[in-house]
């Protein structure tokens, strides 16, 4: 695991075979190979898979899980978990659309949405990091509370975007130069930023340390609670961004948006090699995990495979991939 990338990279000159082996020990390489294999397979199996349109489509679709996945990645690396993101993704659409309808401003709507996300992040973080309640319990609780709150507030009705703002539509549905969906761009920027943050900023390394061993981190003078708190806030804000983009793709605030999303994302994060025990894994792996699941879903659809088979195949692949990763880890 390349916890200190520059260190492992510069471990001295090696023979090519050794370099290759070292490369393959990296979880990301294996995931990348899987992804490429998947793409090659579907390209041959389906005539409509390998088109710019379809590939960019998938990138756009994957970006929502990717953005949220970065957040979950950070929280899990910090040794915690957040299962409330699915509800949050559904919830942020409400302030977004309500404020937008009232003020006619997308910016104000987004600010309101992010404010809600921030509030949820602060609540989760306070309960889990400062009060010390197990984060699965906390976020399971907030997951119920938020979803129930959505239903209470909306009376289980979607809220439509009355003003039909063009900018709101374009955000989730538009494409840069007609090719790259904007959500994919947002995801890419966030990915690069957070990969840098987690690898090359003390804050990122401290998150790793806190997840790897909170006691040690505390002895090293870290404010463990504050770091974990920060991880929750980051996670919620990213889920908020994901929810804003989803809301744009749906052109409204849909009360059932994001149902089950947390499990999809957690599955992708674990598939990407992040250990639920904390402190192990990388955001690059998370991104690859998300892409693998997204291309799998798209490819199986292109092959006209029924839902029930899709579920079975995806489940088996998750087990196989995680088992393989585990085997590899044990071999070392």
């Amino acid at each position, binding site marked *: 695991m390349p916890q200190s990338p520059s260190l492992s990279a510069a471990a001295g000159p090696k023979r090519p075979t050794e370099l290759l082996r070292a490369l393959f020990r990296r979880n990301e390489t294996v995931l990348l190979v899987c992804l490429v294999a998947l793409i090659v397979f579907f390209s041959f199996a389906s005539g409509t898979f390998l088109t710019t349109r379809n590939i960019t489509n998938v990138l756009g679709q994957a970006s929502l899980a990717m953005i949220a996945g970065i957040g979950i990645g950070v929280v899990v690396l910090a040794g915690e978990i957040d299962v409330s993101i699915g509800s949050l993704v559904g919830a942020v659409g409400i302030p977004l659309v309500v404020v937008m309808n009232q003020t006619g401003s997308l910016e104000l709507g987004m600010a309101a949405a992010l404010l809600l996300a921030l509030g949820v992040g602060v609540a989760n973080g306070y309960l889990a990091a400062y009060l010390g309640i197990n984060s699965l319990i906390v976020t399971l609780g907030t997951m119920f509370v938020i979803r129930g709150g959505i239903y209470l507030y909306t009376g289980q009705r979607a809220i439509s975007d009355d003003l039909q703002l063009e900018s709101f539509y374009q955000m989730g549905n538009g494409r840069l130069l007609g090719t790259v969906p904007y959500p994919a761009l947002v995801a890419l920027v966030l990915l690069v930023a957070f990969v840098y943050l987690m690898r090359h900023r003390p804050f990122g390394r401290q998150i790793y340390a806190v997840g790897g061993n909170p006691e040690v981190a505390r002895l090293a003078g870290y404010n463990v609670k504050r770091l974990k708190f920060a991880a929750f806030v980051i996670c919620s804000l990213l889920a908020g961004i994901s929810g804003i983009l989803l809301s744009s793709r749906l052109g409204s605030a849909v009360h059932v948006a994001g149902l089950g999303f947390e499990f999809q994302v957690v599955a992708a994060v674990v598939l990407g090699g992040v250990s639920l025990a904390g402190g192990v894994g990388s955001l690059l792996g998370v991104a690859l995990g998300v892409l693998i699941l997204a291309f799998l879903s798209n490819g199986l659809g292109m092959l006209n495979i029924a839902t029930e088979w*899709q579920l079975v195949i995806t489940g088996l692949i998750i087990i196989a991939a995680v088992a393989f990763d585990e085997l590899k880890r044990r071999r070392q």
Partner: protein
Amino acid sequence: AAETPKKIGYVTNYATHEWYQNVIKGMQDRAGQLGIEFEVRDANLDVARMVSAAEDFMAQGVDVLIITPVNEEGAVPLVRRAKEDGVPLVLEGNPVSGMTTMVAICDYDTGYHAGVAAGEYARDKLGGVAKVMNVGLPLLSATVLRSNGFMDGLKTILPDATMVHDLDGGGNPDRSLEVSAAALAQNGDINIIYGINDSSSQGGLQAWKAAGKSQDGLLVVGTGGEGLGFINMMATEPSYQIEAAMFPEKVGFTSIDAAVKLFNNEAVPAHIVSPTTPMVGTDSWKQYYSVEGTTRTINWDTVNAVVPADKCMKTAADL
């Protein structure tokens, strides 16, 4: 003669649900008859997946797209994107603003006519008393319309009819059973159970039975005629006397026809109404369906003879 599209893609809400299984069956049969390639993608109740699936179909280059939205508001951008892409779009089940056409039953009317039938039944067999437990689903406007229609229809016969308890059964049998058990315990006077789909009415009825109550003096009204469940219940449960049949196969059949018309730029109404009718009495279903083993077959002659209304009495816009 008109041309037929080569390929139609259908994004469904919940492919594994019996109702949609039969809608798909109707579509497949009709597409097969017309020699059209037909593909289904399932949103599996996930709005984000609904958008992705429609996107994928458009990338794949289908000639016509049919969508049953998971949520109608969430499909608004899809209507626009389909237009931008030049793909004709048929909505099934729920209207979406900006759409060209929709194939759907009239949910309010369906409930209403079942309500009228229930009112007559209650007048004749239940001493004119109607205390209703609604095993509803506030999540969808369609199911809310059904419940409203049912009560309004019921009141045309029995103006004193009341909804004693209005429940959210999640549209699931197990959840319906759970919430019904509580409501039945609280309200000893319930004598009509209305379910917004067959799972809901079944959940309500099973809660009644589990409470050890006799079915004398009870009326159960189901909605949908989705699969085998209602047939079995009508055949075996004395209180299950009315089913508001909605003929999913017919919906599917009509949707494909609408898709073909749209493909040929023919004029289509904004709402193509698919017929529904209350079936009253133990054997009433046999008029429309025959069952062999675990497959049911629709009787097209009788179903096609049910004349749909031109226009719904109430729609989601009235809520």
